[in-house]
């Protein structure tokens, strides 16, 4: 997901959660971002700081990138996403829509595109700290 679109979705979700949890102010948000999204953390931080409003105005965002592990459903081989050498076009496609990985990467052992992704996809709002 694009950093700005991602930031907008994160802010919207946090505001909703803050509302549900009756938080007056959000102090800190821990985010885990999947390696497959290949998010530019600096751009995401900038987008978050520009988009944060209201209860989020003083919130700090701590962003951690999570590695993606791939496991072949056919032969069981496990490997890391970072082991794959991809050209710019494939990298960009996976950045926008991580599932297109199945068009660009195959199991290095058996050649199957039928593999499962463990971690490394999407965004996780790990924790929200605030004042009630």
């Amino acid at each position, binding site marked *: 997901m694009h950093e700005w679109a991602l930031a907008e979705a994160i802010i919207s979700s946090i505001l909703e959660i803050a509302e549900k949890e009756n938080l007056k102010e959000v102090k800190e948000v821990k985010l885990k971002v999947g390696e497959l999204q290949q998010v530019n953390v600096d751009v995401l931080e900038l987008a978050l700081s520009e988009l944060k409003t209201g209860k989020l105005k003083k919130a700090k965002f701590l962003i951690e990138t999570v590695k993606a592990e791939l496991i072949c459903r056919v032969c069981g081989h496990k490997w890391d996403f970072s082991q794959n050498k991809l050209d710019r076009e494939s990298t960009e496609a996976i950045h926008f829509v991580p599932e297109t990985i199945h*068009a660009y990467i195959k199991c290095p052992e058996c050649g199957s595109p039928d593999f499962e992704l463990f971690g490394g996809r999407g965004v996780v709002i790990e924790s929200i700290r605030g004042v009630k």
Partner: protein
Amino acid sequence: MRVSEGSNSTVDPRINIIDKRLEKVKRLIAVSSGKGGVGKSLVASVLALTLADKGFGVGLFDADFTSPSTHKILGVKKVEIIEDKGILPIHVHGLKYMSIVAFSGEKTLPLRGVDVSNVLIELFSTTLWGDLDYLIIDMPPGISDITLDIIRLVKRCEFLVISTPSILAFETVEKLLKLLRELKVPVIGVVENMKMEQRFTIRDKVVGMNVPFLGELPFDPKVEYSLGDVKALYETIFAKKVASLVPKIISPHA
């Protein structure tokens, strides 16, 4: 508190933003069927082109991620990804257009159900459609992931259902219609495509279910030779018939 995305998620931040991405879209029409090969993509494409030709703001979204075909119908050679705090649909033949081919090109993209759902959520949460009168969604066949996700995520989406004269196609269409009815999803009506002889079996069955029967589209061999050439496609009897059904399709009381 832990909020995550994915199959075991409690809250997916992307889902939160979908309504906002579509807030300026007046109507969403999913062109759907229980069976493949009934002409959904052709009807969706020609419907979108016709509406755009009438001056409406129209988007076309190809939601068939493993077997996209609208780019072939429209003659789109390359879909460039343009970012502007999200992804901008491309402009083609007066339409705003988005397809997975923008990312996977002509490569084969095998996807399992959860991946298909993720692609749909990803594209709905990032594509900036802006102001539209109509967003036409070309659906994959059947009543699995995408159909269920569209119903779940896009509450105000209406369904335009395509059948052929074959009772085999209608067998699956009937199941789709029953599902949509049970889930209280608005159905615009049924169009019978690839009509070759004057029989009223499908019309009678549709009417018997209290679903609007919108009309018939002929089997037109010229369509095959006009794929990729929008001007030639417009000249086909098929396209002219689609255009004649448009008032019924967009009428709020169809």
